[in-house]
């Protein structure tokens, strides 16, 4: 009867799942027809590498949005973690240790967001708007506004290297995608995130440690942002104190394009990956077609509006 709509994922209805994928496919077909370079292997890996930073931010953002929150500070966390890591590598710390410490600082910054939101009960929008400024400020203070060079070959491989022809950032993105996908679907923590976003009160009364789950979500979001920052630093061989500003909006756009509800409780990480791909393909395609960056902004905004509109009409 209505069985055919019942795709195996319970959090997103069939149409909501198909929508983003169909959109992506449509764009790929169109661009393949218009531009011959589009479907070349080099270009495809290029796209993947370009989206990996945004995808990592968007993965963390998905967790937070699923709980019904938002994190505006990811761009600033990205910069602070990138700068600190570059600085530690510069001081002669082994790159792996510097990276680990960099991720820890990101997690710490995320957990500070989480503490204010879960225990202080301040609206996520406000808390992270404040820390957006705070973390960015700390980055500027620490660097005195100057970029930090970081060309240790053991470090830059993280952003510039290849493994079996695949760019290392893409590998990071895919590995974390599968991990997160598993985490959300198959662990109590994942379930609790959905439950918390769907109905916090019911989750609390069912014995879910809602405070802890919420703080964990922001902590992970911070860790993902810092990893994105470290990879970006490695790719550019330098850490810019202003890097990542405005990235939170692309990350949120990817999550929303993927069909995750801003109200929380509904969504999926695959959608976020597709959302990030849509944005990446759009950017890349417009570049190939020699559309000016000014127009690119306009087109991107229009696509997001259109996607959200389609999503709404499907739901009603």
């Amino acid at each position: 009867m209505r069985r055919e709509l019942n795709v195996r994922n319970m959090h997103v209805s069939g149409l909501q799942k198909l929508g983003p994928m169909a959109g992506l496919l449509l764009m790929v077909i169109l661009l393949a027809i218009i531009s011959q370079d589009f479907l070349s292997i080099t270009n495809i890996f290029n796209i993947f590498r370009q989206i990996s930073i945004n995808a990592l931010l968007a993965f963390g953002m998905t967790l937070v949005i699923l709980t019904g929150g938002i994190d505006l500070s990811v761009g600033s966390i990205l910069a602070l973690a990138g700068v600190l890591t570059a600085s530690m590598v510069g001081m002669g710390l082994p790159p792996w240790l510097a990276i680990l410490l960099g991720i820890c600082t990101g997690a710490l910054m995320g957990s500070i967001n989480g503490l204010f939101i879960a225990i202080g009960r301040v609206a996520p929008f406000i808390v992270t708007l404040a820390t957006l400024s705070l973390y960015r400020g700390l980055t500027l203070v620490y660097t005195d506004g100057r970029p930090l060079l970081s060309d240790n070959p053991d470090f830059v491989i993280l952003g510039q290297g290849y493994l079996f022809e695949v760019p290392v950032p893409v590998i990071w993105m895919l590995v974390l995608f599968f991990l997160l996908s598993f985490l959300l679907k198959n662990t109590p923590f994942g379930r609790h995130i959905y439950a918390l976003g769907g109905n916090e009160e019911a989750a609390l009364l069912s014995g879910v440690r809602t405070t802890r789950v919420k703080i964990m979500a922001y902590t992970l979001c911070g860790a993902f942002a810092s990893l994105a920052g470290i990879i970006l630093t490695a790719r550019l061989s330098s850490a810019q104190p202003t890097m990542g500003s405005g990235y939170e909006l692309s990350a949120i756009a990817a999550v929303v394009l993927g069909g995750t509800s801003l109200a929380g409780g509904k969504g999926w990480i695959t959608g976020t990956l597709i959302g990030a791909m849509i944005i990446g393909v759009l950017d890349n395609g417009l570049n190939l077609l020699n559309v000016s960056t000014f127009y690119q902004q306009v087109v991107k905004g229009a696509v997001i509006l259109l996607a959200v509109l389609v999503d709404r009409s499907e739901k009603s």
Partner: protein
Amino acid sequence: MTLLQMSGIEKSFAHVQVLKQVRFTLEAGEIHALLGENGAGKSTLIKILSGGFPADQGKILIDDKEVTFQSPRAAMKAGIGVIHQELHLVPQLSICENLFLGREHSFGFGWIRWRKMKEEARHWLKKVGLNKDPFCKVGGLSVGQQQLVEIAKALSLQAKILILDEPTAALTPLEVRSLFATLRALRGKGVGMIYISHRLEEVQELSDRITVLRNGEIIATHPTHEIALDHVVQMMVGRDLAERFPQKTAVKTPVDRLRVKGLTQTGVVEGVSFHIQAGEVLGLAGLIGAGRTELANLLFGVSKRDAGEIWLDGKPATFRHPREAVRLGMAYVTEDRKGKGLVLTQSVKENLSLVAMNAFTTMGVITKKLEEEQATTLSKQLGIRATSLDQPAAFLSGGNQQKVAIGKWLVQPPKVLILDEPTRGVDIGAKQEIYQLMNQLSAQGVAILLISSDLPEVLGMSDRVMVMRKGKQVATFTQKEATEQRVLEAAAGGGGLLAEGIERAEHAR
């Protein structure tokens, strides 16, 4: 005089026929009860009558003139007022502002004529017997008073026909009395009312005629005084129900599962002490605001207690977080199942496994197969009707939602089960199933605390009944001692107010 005639009404949704040849009439000055289980077609009929959507076929005559409604507004203009179960008032605005919302009297240019509105508001409030200043904020009124404001609003829109959908679901017994007095007064003035309720005692007391709807068909229409309740129930469900409250087979064992001493949350719950034995059901009656739900919240560690002790199976237990209560074997089915009981965006299966996820988690990973099996077993045991276990809980009927809300506590049987209004807004068939489930659990030695505003239910299901008033425990009756009169008197305090209410009601009759 016949106010309303509906005949030959048919309605289908996506090839499923919901109403078949429905005939319904309403006289002026009549209270006509419309009964039926959830899904019988009551809401559809009401929606057609109130302009929600048109019927596929059939005629509606108001004052012998045929009408068709294209919108709720058109129905309102034709004199039909609907009082929904959920109230549609703006709590931040005053009574007066709510009454005239969207049609404020003004001098023009948006300059509001407050004095005129106030006078008119007074007039309508008097009609419904609500003695309040029109400039009171609606949010500060009790649910019962808000309902009267809704009725006043409908009347001020010149409604001749009032549709009341479960108006007493959230009212205290005293408020029910005063609502009934108002409805009777309106009946005296020629207003026709369609009254929908799951509470048969009320229907019997209040209505003039009863119409039973089942599977979209009218089964029968009878004058209320000519028909017995048992017969009504039989017509509603289409089969004999053995008894409204199934006989308990459980033997309680003289072991206290739960013992509470001097439980206090200052100003809300004051020094409550009681005990529940294994297999026993303790009913907790009281008016809304008596502190019953607050007591449950204290027991479960949701709110912080200022004093008092709790023992579970003889061991002192302190909960600072619901999680600790859950761990020690407490279960709590909340009053507000949509707001606090279920995660509506999640599936039936996920809701059922939310509490005891540990039962099928190994090394931090959920074993999907075990989870599926567990959910299947539970849904069979509870008779949950859903298209699949992956259906979001939001799409289930009230009764089935409630079964899920209870079911999630049964993966690992609890020691103590708190049920807060477990059958509110649930149809008779599902009520029966919930009662039977309570008996099964009692037989397994679960101690049950039953909080309910449905007095026959409390009396029918409990071994003992405790009554609270203003945060204090005022009386405890054994099953034999507990009568409706006694419990109500204890709940209302000395019987003074209550006696007055009943007297007024009798007088109006």
